[in-house]
C-alpha cells in the first residue's frame, strides 16, 4: 500500500506535498481521516436520515414536502388544524392507503420528537420502533446520537478555529516583536490562564440563558492560550534564522516577514495539535453538558445522554451507545493526530 515514488518525483514535491505523502503512508491515520470525514458529512444531512417527518408524501395526486413546509393534519384528512404528527398510526394509515404513499427517513424520529405511541414505559429498550431505545423523556436515542455527534463536531471545529486564529495572532506578535511586548503579553496570559475557568462557566451559566454561542465565546476566551505558546516559541526560533535576516536586510516589512516567511514555517505545532484540540473541545462540551452547565435542555447532546445514563443506570442503551460514539470519535481523532504528527516530522524522509 505504501506508495513508492521515484527519487526524482519525491524531490519535486513541495514540503506540504511531502508531508501529505507521509500522512498517506500511515494507513491507520489515513483511514481514520476518511472515516471521520465521511461520518461528519453524513451527519450534516441528519435531517434527511433521522426525522419525524417523511421526506416526500403523495396524497391525493398532490406532492407534499413536510421537511420544508408545515402542513396541518387536515391536509391529510385528519381532524385537527394543528401540525401533523406523521408518526401517529392514524395519519400513517391515511397517507399510505389508496394509492397515497410517503417516503420516510431511515430513522423515524428527530432529536426532539417524542414517541407518544410507545408500548413500553420510557426509557424504552431498543425495539423495532426505536432502534437504540428511547431516553427518559421518550426521545429516540439514535436520533439524539446523530444530531449530538453533528453538534459536537461543529462546536469543536468552530472552537478550534477561533482558538487557532487567536493563538496564532497573539503568539506571532509576541514571538516576533519580543522585548516589552512579549513580556507584558506573557504576564497577561499567565494571569488570564490562572482564572478558574469552571467557576466562571458556572457563574455565567446562571446569569445568562445557556446557549451554544455563549459556550463558544466562553471557551474561546481560554482555549487559545496553549497554542499561542507554541507559535511564540516557533517565531522566537525562526526570527533569527538567516532567511528572516535576509528578508529584513532586503527591506521586507514586518507584517510580510511574519506572515510570508515565519508563519508557514511555524505551522507544524499548530497542525499537529489540531486533531487533539478538536477532541479536547468535544470532551469539554460533553463534560459541561454532563454537569448540566452546557447547552440548553432540548438540544441534542452527548453529555446530556451520558447524564441520563447515570440517572438510569439499568438503561444500558443510554450510556453504552453514547459511550461508544464518544470513544469512537475521540479514537479516530487521535489516530489522525498521530499520523499528522509523524507526517510533519521532517526527519522521517
Amino acid at each position: 500500500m505504501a506508495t513508492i515514488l521515484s527519487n526524482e518525483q519525491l524531490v519535486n514535491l513541495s514540503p506540504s506535498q511531502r508531508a501529505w505523502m507521509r500522512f498517506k503512508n500511515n494507513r491507520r491515520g489515513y483511514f481514520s481521516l476518511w472515516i471521520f470525514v465521511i461520518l461528519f458529512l453524513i451527519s450534516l444531512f441528519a435531517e434527511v436520515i433521522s426525522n419525524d417527518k417523511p421526506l416526500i408524501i403523495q396524497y391525493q395526486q398532490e406532492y407534499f414536502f413536510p421537511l420544508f413546509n408545515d402542513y396541518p393534519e387536515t391536509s391529510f384528512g385528519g381532524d385537527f388544524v394543528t401540525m401533523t404528527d406523521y408518526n401517529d398510526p392514524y395519519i400513517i394509515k391515511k397517507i399510505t392507503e389508496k394509492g397515497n404513499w410517503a417516503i420516510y427517513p431511515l430513522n423515524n424520529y428527530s432529536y426532539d420528537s417524542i414517541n407518544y405511541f410507545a408500548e413500553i414505559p420510557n426509557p424504552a429498550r431498543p425495539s423495532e420502533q426505536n432502534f437504540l431505545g428511547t431516553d427518559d423523556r421518550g426521545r429516540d436515542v439514535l436520533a439524539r446520537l446523530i444530531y449530538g455527534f453533528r453538534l459536537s463536531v461543529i462546536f469543536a471545529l468552530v472552537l478550534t478555529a477561533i482558538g487557532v486564529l487567536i493563538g496564532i495572532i497573539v503568539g506571532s506578535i509576541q514571538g516576533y516583536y519580543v522585548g516589552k511586548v512579549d513580556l507584558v503579553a506573557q504576564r497577561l496570559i499567565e494571569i488570564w490562564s490562572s482564572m478558574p475557568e469552571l467557576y466562571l462557566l458556572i457563574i455565567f451559566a446562571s446569569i445568562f440563558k445557556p446557549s451554544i454561542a455563549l459556550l463558544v465565546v466562553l471557551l474561546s476566551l481560554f482555549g487559545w492560550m496553549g497554542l499561542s505558546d507554541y507559535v511564540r516559541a516557533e517565531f522566537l526560533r525562526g526570527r533569527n534564522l538567516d532567511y528572516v535576516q535576509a528578508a529584513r536586510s532586503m527591506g521586507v516589512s514586518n507584517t510580510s516577514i511574519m506572515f510570508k516567511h515565519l508563519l508557514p514555517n511555524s505551522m507544524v505545532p499548530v497542525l499537529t495539535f489540531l486533531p487533539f484540540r478538536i477532541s479536547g473541545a468535544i470532551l469539554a462540551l460533553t463534560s459541561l453538558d454532563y454537569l448540566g452547565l452546557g447547552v440548553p435542555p432540548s438540544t441534542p447532546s452527548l453529555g446530556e445522554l451520558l447524564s441520563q445514563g447515570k440517572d438510569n443506570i439499568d438503561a444500558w442503551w443510554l450510556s453504552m451507545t453514547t459511550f461508544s460514539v464518544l470513544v469512537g470519535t475521540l479514537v479516530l481523532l487521535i489516530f489522525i493526530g498521530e499520523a499528522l504528527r509523524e507526517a510533519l516530522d521532517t526527519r522521517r524522509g
Partner: protein
Amino acid sequence: MKKDIVDNNNTESSILEVKDLSVSFHTLAGNINVVRDINFSVDCGETMALVGESGSGKSVTAMSILRLHDEEKMDYSSSSIFFKGHNLLDVDESNIKKVRGSEISMIFQEPMTSLNPTFTVGSQIMEPMIIHKGMSKTAAKKRAIDLMELTGIPEPHYRFDAFPHLLSGGQRQRMMIAMALACEPKLLIADEPTTALDVTVQLQILMLLEKLKKDFSMAVLMITHDLNLVKRFADRVCVMQEGNIVEQGYVEALFAKPQHPYTIKLLNSEPERIIAEGETQALQDKRKLLTGQNLKCYFSSSKGFFKRTKNTVKAVDNIDLYLREGETLGIVGESGSGKSTLGRCLLRLEKCTGEIFFDEKQIDQLTHTALRPLRKEFQIVFQDPYSSLSPRMTIEQIVGEGLLIHFPQLNKDQRREKIKQVLLEVGLEDNILWRYPHEFSGGQRQRIAIARVVILEPKLILLDEPTSALDVSVQKQVLILLRELQERHKISYLFITHDLKVIEAVAHRIMVMKDGKIIETGETEQIFKNPQKTYTQNLLTASLFKNETDEKISA
C-alpha cells in the same frame, strides 16, 4: 586496483578490515544506497583518512563501524567489518556495547553538542572507565585527571568539576578526546574532529591527536573533507565519492600522482588568486562607497536582581574602515572576533554607535522606514544556504521578493523575465521557478541566495562566510561566480571569512580582526607575504599547515 590493496595488506597487522560494506537506508523513495561495496583496512598505529565531500558516505561508513545507525531503518546486506578478527556486524547488541568506547571510540565534529550540558566534564570522562573497566570512582577520577592533563587542559583538578558551557570549543574537544581515550582504545574514529574549531585551535588539536596516537599506539580513522589536513597528518587515504571509494593509497603517492579524475578534481579545487595583479592599485582612484568611523557595538549583560553588575562584551571596538567602488575588502578573524557583528553594523542590522556613510549619505541616523528604500543598494549573502532560504517558498518567490518591494513598477511578466535572467546569470537553469529550496544542493542554493541579492542591482554586498558551508569543489565555483558578478556590475564586496585561503583568492585588501579590534590591515599580497603582527603570522601558519612551525605552536 582496490582489491590489490586489500589483498596486499598483511591481515596480521591490520586492526580493522571493512569488506564489501554496503549501507542502504529505507525511505519513502525506497531503499537508498549510501555506501556501495567499499573495502579498506586500517593498520595498527596508522592514521587512515576517509576524504570526501558532503554526502559521499564517509560519516555513514564511520558510524557503521560502531553500529550507531538506527538498524530498523537500514540494511547492511552482506557486508562485514572485522575488528580484531570479529565481524562487528554479526555480534549482538550487548557485545557491541563492550566494543564501543572501550576498544573503538569516536570523537565528533561538534564539541558544543557532543558533551552533555547537565553533567560535569569529569563525570563524563569517568563514565566509560566505570562501565567498561569496572574501576572504582576514586581510581577513575585519578585517571580522568591524568587524561585531562595529557590532552593539555590547564588546571585539570579545577576543570574536573566544570560544566561543558564553561569551556571553550578547543577545550571541549580536548575533553572529548580525553573521554575517547579513557579506556585506551585500539582504534579512534575522528569524524571531522576540527571542522568546528578555529584554525589555530585546529592545529593544536591535530598535533595532540598525533602525539596521543604514538603514546597509546592506537590507530586513527580520520574523516575529513580537508585535503591539507590529510596531507599533513594521515599515512594513508581513501577518497570517497557517492558511496564508492574511488582511490586509495599512501598519502605521498596519492597526492603526487592522483589516478582517478575525481581525486584530481578535488586536488585542483584549492582556491587560487583570481584577482589580476595591479588591480588593487588601479582601484585606488575610485571613490569610497562605504565609510565607517568610530564604530562601536557593545553587548552588555546585567547580573543580579537589581541589574547592577554589568558585563560588557566589546564586539566592535572603535573601528574605522572604508570600501571603494568595485573593491573587495576581506575581514578575517577567528570566531568571536566581531567580524560578523561589524558587517551587520555597517548594514544597520545591528545597533551601534559611530558614523556610517554610504554613497555619500550618512545612514547611521536614519530610521528603519527611511532606510528601507536604501536597502536595495546594500545586500547580504549568508553563510549557510540551508537556513538562508525559506523552505516553504518557491524559487520564484524567494528571488522575486525584493523586486516586489524595490521595483514595484514591474508587472508579473516583467518580474518573471528578470528572475529568469538573473538565474541564468548565476549559472542556474531558468526552469526552476516553481521548485523548492530542498531540491537543490548546497552550491545551487548559494547561487539562489546570490541571485536573490544580485537581482536588486546593489552597489554593495556583504558576504558573510559565503563559502564555508560548501564543499571545496563548489567553493571555488562560487568564488569565481562572485568575481564575475563583481567585474560585470562593479559591485563592492565586504567579504567576511575565517578561511585565509579563500580570502587570499578574492580580496583586494584585508583587515584582520581580534576581539573587536583591527589587528592589521593592508593589501592582500602584502599581508600574506609579510605579515607584521604576531597574531597574523600565527593565523597564517595555522591555516596553511606549515610544518616548520610545529614546535612553536604546540609549545
